[in-house]
């Protein structure tokens, strides 16, 4: 079972294409043009759709506004350079780009902390995260995953959203919601199980 909902292949086979993320097959074709033809027009189109979204995601996860454009550039450059590695059978374009953005952000945090420094050094502590614009979901563009998310019990959904949209750890979510750590972990586990089984059914 797997959630690969929005791949090019699925698009062709899908009975109900409204369940698909907008234009997944189209973006997959653009990525292929980038990979094979080094097509800049395709890149500009990908940039125009994804860059404002990736930036929201980065800001939501606590990347400082001053650094966000920098990380965004790294992400989009990786899209250009690694388009050949995109496999529409494995992931939707938005999933692939999401994972690149996540990795670039984690790499950046890692580069900012060096192994030989004393962990007590104040500069190793994560910077006070600047209040970024809340990255709120647009209800007008609900994909199948977003619909399945909306069906989750609210207390489970909020734990998943805080993980993805704010990059909060289990401990941070527990603190934020004033819940025991074990409760947060079990809510995430339950939500994930439910999402996997619901979305698996769509395949």
């Amino acid at each position, binding site marked *: 079972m*797997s959630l*690969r*909902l929005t791949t090019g292949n699925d698009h062709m086979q899908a009975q109900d294409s409204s369940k698909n993320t907008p234009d997944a097959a189209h973006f997959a074709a653009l990525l292929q043009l980038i990979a094979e033809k*080094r097509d800049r027009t395709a*890149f500009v189109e990908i*940039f125009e759709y*994804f*860059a*404002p*979204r990736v*930036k*929201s*995601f980065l800001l939501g*996860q606590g990347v400082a506004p001053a650094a966000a454009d920098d990380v*965004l*550039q790294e992400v*989009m*450059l990786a899209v*250009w*350079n*690694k388009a*050949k590695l995109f496999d529409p059978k494995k*992931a*939707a374009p*938005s*999933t692939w*780009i*999401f*994972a690149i*953005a*996540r990795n670039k952000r*984690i790499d950046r945090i*890692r580069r900012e*902390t060096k*192994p030989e*420094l004393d*962990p007590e050094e104040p500069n*190793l502590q994560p910077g006070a995260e600047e209040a970024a614009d*809340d*990255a709120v*979901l*647009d209800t007008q*563009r609900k*994909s*199948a995953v977003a619909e399945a*998310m909306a069906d989750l019990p609210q207390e489970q959904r909020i734990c*998943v959203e805080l*993980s*993805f949209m*704010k*990059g909060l*750890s289990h401990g941070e979510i527990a603190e934020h919601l004033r819940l025991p750590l074990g409760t*947060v*972990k079990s809510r*995430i*586990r339950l939500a*994930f*199980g439910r999402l*996997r089984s619901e*979305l698996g059914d769509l395949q």
Partner: protein
Amino acid sequence: MNTAHTIQDEWLLSYAAGALTPGRSLMVAAHAAYHDGLQEKVADAEAIGGALLDAVDLSNVDQRVLEHLLDNLNDAPPEIAAPRADEIFPDPLAEFVDGGADSLKWRFMGPGMSNVRLWNGPNDERLWLLRARGGIAMPEHGHNGDEWTLVLKGAFNTSQGRFAVGDMDIADDAMEHQPLIEQGEECICLVLTEGPLRFNSLAARMVQPLIGL
């Protein structure tokens, strides 16, 4: 797959979400590299991220970001480095250290034991590699926080059972724990600890400042 020795789903979701520290992210990625079932779950959780990315509010992006990128795109087909094949380290770890076990400087940690510190992070998190000779007992210790141990080579036993290559031992601060390395082959593990280990023996406590754990 022995699910008792694989990490639980809530960690896979947080990894996919980008909600773990760099040290824990690397632990999960390296662990998943051994298990198709874990990779499939990570891919599912990433699909949640992809859907959220489609649905997120848009931020303003300065036109200069695109212009700068277009000025710097390389039209030549990119060289995509093949994953570093290493006999012991899974790909995410080989990439992280940019080499294999033999390219690292192992430091003496006690008789038959050496270590390499890889990363220190917030909450006094330490990511390090442990190399121990077959047959030795690790000093008995407790933890001030979580301790995650991923076996990369060889095997060890604890009160929780036998841990072999690809297995993850997850101990929390309530556990006293004395891993026993199996006879024969050496054992190499990727370890993440929170806060200094609490050794029970005086001898281990005396060398602790030297080994930096």
